[in-house]
């Protein structure tokens, strides 16, 4: 593979046909006999480009693989297939000392902010002492005074003022929102190129969320950092990615089923699964409308160990026809949609072969999804 780092043709991060499969019988005998059971295909053939200064919200239900995809993208989860390239360089090959960009540099460039961030702060150290070590390691050119100055400036940017006070506090003296901001500051101090924020706002009280999202966006703009937000909440995803003029990617059972510019996904969704997520997102303006029936044939997610054949959504999809049970749709765009809007659905693309088969029976038979198990790969 050519190491064309820094080339203009390569985006910041390119995910190509990525697989992350967990478990399964990978012993010698199983391999000899070709048995593969109990494998969870948490991420299964996902391709996605993240540009410079790009914001993408990954949305989906638990177990859809959004966190696993995010972690694989930033080098925290080893893919079982496909590649993740950082400025053209395969990050997993780089780990083995190949390529122009040192592995250390890539690790610094790709950062993560966890849900429930407070737990990732050392309770026995002050906020400054929590932030200082990483800065010392990754920014050795700065002396203590400069590091202190930088920390204070960043705390002030996220509203933790007076910063003198906050820098000398211990984590238990912070509210949940303040701890979340501190962790965000910690990740930003390294001046990464991409931050993965996993449900970074959903643990906060509703009345504080917009404020935190605004501060995230302010930092994003200030540092021209790319962001991947993982969320199960369409309203939060829309706010974060929408304000940054970014995209929403909708995941279902290890696949991206629809991706596109934010308002296009919200107001012109094409995939029936995206439509069902939007159904589930009550806008306040609709409170006087009665809740309609869920626009799915089954409310339970199938067993990720044993995903449905063909289009994985066909067991729940209200539009599914027999064609969908055998054929696996790919992400495609259509001329009448906005640029960069793609979906993987035969119905949305009005495919003739799809219309030539029978619709699946509209059964309320619940046995079909009875294998749904708990605690999937998300």
């Amino acid at each position, binding site marked *: 593979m050519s190491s064309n780092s820094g080339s203009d043709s390569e985006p910041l991060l390119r995910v190509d046909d990525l697989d992350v499969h967990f478990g399964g019988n990978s012993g010698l005998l199983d391999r000899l006999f070709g048995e593969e059971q109990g494998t969870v295909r948490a991420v299964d053939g996902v391709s996605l480009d993240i540009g410079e200064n790009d914001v993408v919200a990954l949305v989906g*239900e*638990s177990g859809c693989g959004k966190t696993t995809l995010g972690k694989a993208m930033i080098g925290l989860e080893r893919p079982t297939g496909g590649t993740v390239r950082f400025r053209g360089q395969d990050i997993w090959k780089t780990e083995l000392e190949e390529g122009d960009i040192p592995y250390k540099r890539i690790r610094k460039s790709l950062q993560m902010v966890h849900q429930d961030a407070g737990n990732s702060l050392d309770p026995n150290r002050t906020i400054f002492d929590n932030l200082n070590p990483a800065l010392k390691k990754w920014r050795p050119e700065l002396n203590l005074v400069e590091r202190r100055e930088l920390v204070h400036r960043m705390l002030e940017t996220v509203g933790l003022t007076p910063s003198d006070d906050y820098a000398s506090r211990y984590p238990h003296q912070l*509210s*949940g*929102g303040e701890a979340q901001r501190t962790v965000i500051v910690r990740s930003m101090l390294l001046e990464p190129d991409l931050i993965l924020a996993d449900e970074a706002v959903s643990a906060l*009280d*509703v*009345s*504080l*969320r*917009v*404020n*935190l*999202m*605004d501060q995230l966006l302010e930092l994003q703009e200030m540092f021209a950092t790319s962001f991947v937000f993982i969320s*199960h*909440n*369409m*309203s*939060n995803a*829309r*706010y974060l990615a*929408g*304000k940054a003029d970014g995209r929403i990617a909708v995941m279902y059972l290890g696949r991206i089923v629809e991706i596109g510019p934010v308002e296009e996904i*919200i107001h012109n969704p094409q995939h029936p699964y995206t439509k*069902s*997520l*939007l*159904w*589930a*997102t*009550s*806008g*306040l*303006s*609709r*409170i*006087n*409308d*009665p*809740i*309609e*029936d*869920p626009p*799915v044939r*089954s*409310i*339970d*997610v199938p067993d990720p160990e044993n995903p449905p054949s063909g289009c994985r959504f066909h067991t729940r999809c209200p539009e599914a026809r027999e064609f969908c049970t055998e054929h696996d749709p790919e992400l495609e765009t259509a001329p009448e949609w906005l640029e960069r809007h793609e979906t993987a659905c035969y119905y949305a693309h009005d495919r003739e072969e799809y219309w030539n088969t029978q619709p699946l029976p509209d059964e*309320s038979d*619940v*046995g079909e999804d*009875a294998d*749904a*198990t*708990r605690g999937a790969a998300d």
Partner: protein
Amino acid sequence: MATQNTERRNRIDVASDNVLEIENASVGFAMDRGDAQVLNNVSIDVHRGEVLGVVGESGSGKSMLADSMLDSIDDPGTLTGRVTFHPPEGGDPVVVNDLNKEELRRFRWERISMVVQGAMDSFNPTLTVGDHFEETLRAHDYDVPEGMERARDLLEDVHLDADRVLDSYPHQLSGGMTQRALIALSLILDPDVLVMDEPTAALDLLMQQSILKLLAELKAEYDLTVVIVTHDLSHVARISDRLAVMYAFELLELGPVSELVADPAHPYTRELLNSIPDIDADLDEMGSIEGTSPDPLNVPEGCSYHPRCPIAKEKCVNENPDLFDVPGEEGHGAACFYIDEARETIPLKKEVTE
């Protein structure tokens, strides 16, 4: 510490058939740092057959209000005030917090049952779901075969395969399935009231909304009164008849859902509505409320919202407002001295379509 002024008018009266009446309910906890008042003099009537949504952020006292309805405050917390239950068949009202231990054991499940967040923890992992139904029936001396028939109906009502679920252990079911099985279990003794504390918080949106839809159906089918406690106003608004807004362990506003969402009277409710990331609203019109909710040991004097309130005046710092009647629909009350000013000066950013 907010003054617990018993003279303060804290209830909104409307002529109604009440299944539950909560009068001056307060809950105190002795903590290392001092005494914490985690429910402060709340009075509220629950109307028979309604869905009452109790909305509040973390540390608002909303779960304490729910627990008070079944007198199930954890030790060392103590409930004062009075909770009265009126049986649908008539007869003597039951003062819930005067019941002895055995009476209370029977009262729960048979009269009022409760579903909490995280169904997985409510099930014993060593018993099948079916065992839980049988055990509950036996503990209350109900006919088991007959009860199990009802169990099957209830499980089908919540879109579960009854045979399979009854034979399953809790860990064999997904989170959404367990939560629905718990809802079915809570209805096995045909209670009059179902109290749900964040019943869907740990679940995905599609499942949350589906469960709310199922609840609306169950309520109609089984003549239930439902109380749903949640941090997410937009989520329960669509199935609620009335909303109660809690803040700093007090009831700040109460009213019919349509008016409470279309034109709330309390500054907190107005700002809360404006702060909810809303799928239909203009992106530039959402904002947050400055500051944070108070600590239970350090609730501000006067109106507990005054440090965050944009229209707070000296009176708000010194006096805790009554729950005043709000002009408009009957039964709408707000604990604010300046209702008119709040409605005029804090514009709502989202319009509710009528």
